[in-house]
């Protein structure tokens, strides 16, 4: 049983730098949870508190139903993979993987069995006698995973494990780590600043900013119903488009006025929430994939000047300007408009998100 629970956890570094003010988080047994957020938001600090590498200033941290604030890392039944791998340069791959078990005085033949088992799973068997220096980045990464694996930990902690790899290898290792999680059936806590990794790997994503959890939900919910502007902008690539809009009510229906155009809001939106904003300026968000570039003769909601058209192969990324509002739209490569033209845009109105301009909190989706 290796759930992890933060109860009012605070972390203040010497010099009165409070990095995590009041963290409350529950990670279930066998779950793959991603901590994501911009650099410096306290992800590593949070992970390192679970590992026992950082003291907890106040509050309680549970692993299972045991408070581990004062438990030594080696007794927490965790294993950690570092961003720079932190392999022992003077030891062979075998010894790197075996070291923790040797420290724990596990019998030699048992160590041997486990090291070979891990090496086999990670395709490292032919490298066991090499030193880390003689390995490629991807191989080092796998050794680091192997070192964590052999200890059969209840919790795997991974701190940006893929950020030192090139793009192609990263995609491959992403799949490998996901497979590893399925195979091992243990709790994974994975830190990254990369929203693609977060979206593709996690059962659940915890978005952090300045040490505060912004939203904690499944990737799909995060994508469909971001709770504030920050999450909306952080999750998804290219980024969600934001435009100022004024809410109006016409009969029973609500509309948003965006740079001189009236856009009907989907009837599925929370009417009660909208009512409070009639006549007020809000932020309208819509993802690039939810805007269609259409011919100027067709029904459309907005017109915007095409500033840049990036051909991506199957698609064109259009960067547009609508009276000062910058937009990015994905159009099929057959789209006729070119730089300098005025493009007609049709919004999938049921995919519109509205946010309070002051508090940045989501109003309705």
């Amino acid at each position, binding site marked *: 049983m290796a759930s992890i629970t933060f109860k009012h956890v605070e972390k203040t570094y010497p010099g009165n730098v409070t990095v995590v003010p009041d963290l409350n988080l529950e990670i279930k047994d066998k779950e793959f949870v991603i901590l994501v957020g911009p650099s410096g938001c306290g992800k590593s600090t949070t992970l390192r508190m679970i*590992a*026992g*590498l950082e003291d907890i200033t106040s509050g309680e941290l549970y692993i299972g139903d045991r408070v581990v604030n004062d438990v030594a*890392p*080696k007794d927490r039944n*965790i*294993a*950690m993979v*570092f*961003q*720079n791998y*932190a*392999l*022992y*340069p*003077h030891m062979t791959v075998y010894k790197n993987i075996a*070291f*923790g078990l040797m*420290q*724990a005085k596990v019998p030699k033949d048992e160590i041997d069995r486990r090291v070979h088992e891990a090496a086999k799973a990670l395709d490292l068997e032919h490298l066991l006698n090499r030193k880390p220096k003689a390995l490629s980045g991807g191989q080092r990464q796998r050794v680091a995973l192997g*070192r964590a694996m052999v200890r059969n930990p209840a919790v795997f902690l991974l701190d940006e494990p893929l950020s030192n790899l090139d793009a192609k290898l990263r995609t491959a290792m992403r799949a490998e780590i996901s497979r590893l999680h399925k195979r091992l059936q243990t709790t994974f806590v994975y830190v990254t600043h990369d929203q693609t990794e977060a979206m593709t790997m996690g059962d659940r994503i915890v978005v952090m900013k300045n040490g505060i959890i912004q939203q904690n939900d499944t990737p799909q919910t995060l994508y469909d119903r971001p709770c504030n502007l920050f999450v909306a902008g952080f999750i998804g690539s290219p980024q969600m488009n934001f435009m100022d809009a004024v809410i109006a009510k016409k009969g029973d229906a609500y509309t948003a006025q965006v740079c001189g155009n009236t856009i009907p809001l989907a009837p599925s939106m929370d009417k009660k929430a909208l009512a409070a904003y009639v006549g007020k300026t809000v932020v309208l968000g819509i993802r690039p994939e939810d805007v269609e570039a259409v011919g100027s003769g067709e029904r459309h909601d907005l017109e915007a000047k095409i500033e840049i058209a990036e051909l991506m192969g199957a698609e064109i990324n259009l960067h547009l300007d609508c009276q000062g509002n910058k937009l990015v739209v994905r159009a099929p490569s057959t789209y006729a408009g070119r730089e300098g033209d005025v493009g007609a845009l049709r919004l999938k109105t049921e995919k519109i998100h509205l946010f309070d301009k002051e508090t940045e909190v989501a109003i309705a989706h």
Partner: protein
Amino acid sequence: MKSASLERSRTMSKVLTYAALILGTVIMIFPFVWMILTSLKSVPESMKIPPTIFPAELIVSNFSDAVASLPFGHLYLNTALMVFFRVVCAIAFSSMAGYAFAKLQFRGKGLLFGIVLVQMSLPSQIFIIPQYQMVAKMGMANTVFALVFPGIVSAFGVFFLRQTYLGIPTEIGEAAYLDGCNQWQTFYKVMFPLTGTSVAALTIFTAVFAYGDLMWPLVVNSDLQMMTLSSGLATLRGQFSTNFPVLMAGSLLAMLPMVILYLIFQRQFIEGIASTGGK
């Protein structure tokens, strides 16, 4: 046309480089050659003005005279013990202190390291009198311990190894901690083995310095049996006259072990001296 002149200027610069290097080598090697030549001269010839270059007659007995006038066996042994223990102490204590300064957090770290830096920047001569008083109070004058004493801790070594430990990623130590190492195990199983190059450099630096140290052995061990090669040889310099050929013969004998070691460890020697920035 153009390439020919380029070729010529390249050749020219090569010639100049070699000329400078040869000149440098001659200047460096001349005292050594002079020493060998003097060790084979008679006393009157060695003091002749203008000097002769080659001995008129080879006086090989200078060497047996040197061996007869000094207890070379003791001198070799004392020197070897002094060098050995100074090296071991420098490595052990500098490694531990360097690791602590680089990787551990403790109160007063900045101040303590400041003291190390101050000690390193002061000339070692100013410590000779207080150090002598300490050894004398312990009643340890005229012992091997006395010879080793100032080399037990090396401020330079602490500084040098601290730099080395700073260069090792903190995560490696943390990984060891997670793997169940305590602080001491992290140090000796994981961190210390990563400092091999620096430890080798410090070994050579310390050994060369200890071997050449004259002042301290001369001050602390007045008993000829307890002297080192350097201080023993110094006794051959008389107050009024010095038998230079015998002194040179003795010096050559004293150099012998170092020359042999150098020939064996030539590469490490050069790398070591280069990386400590000594000389």
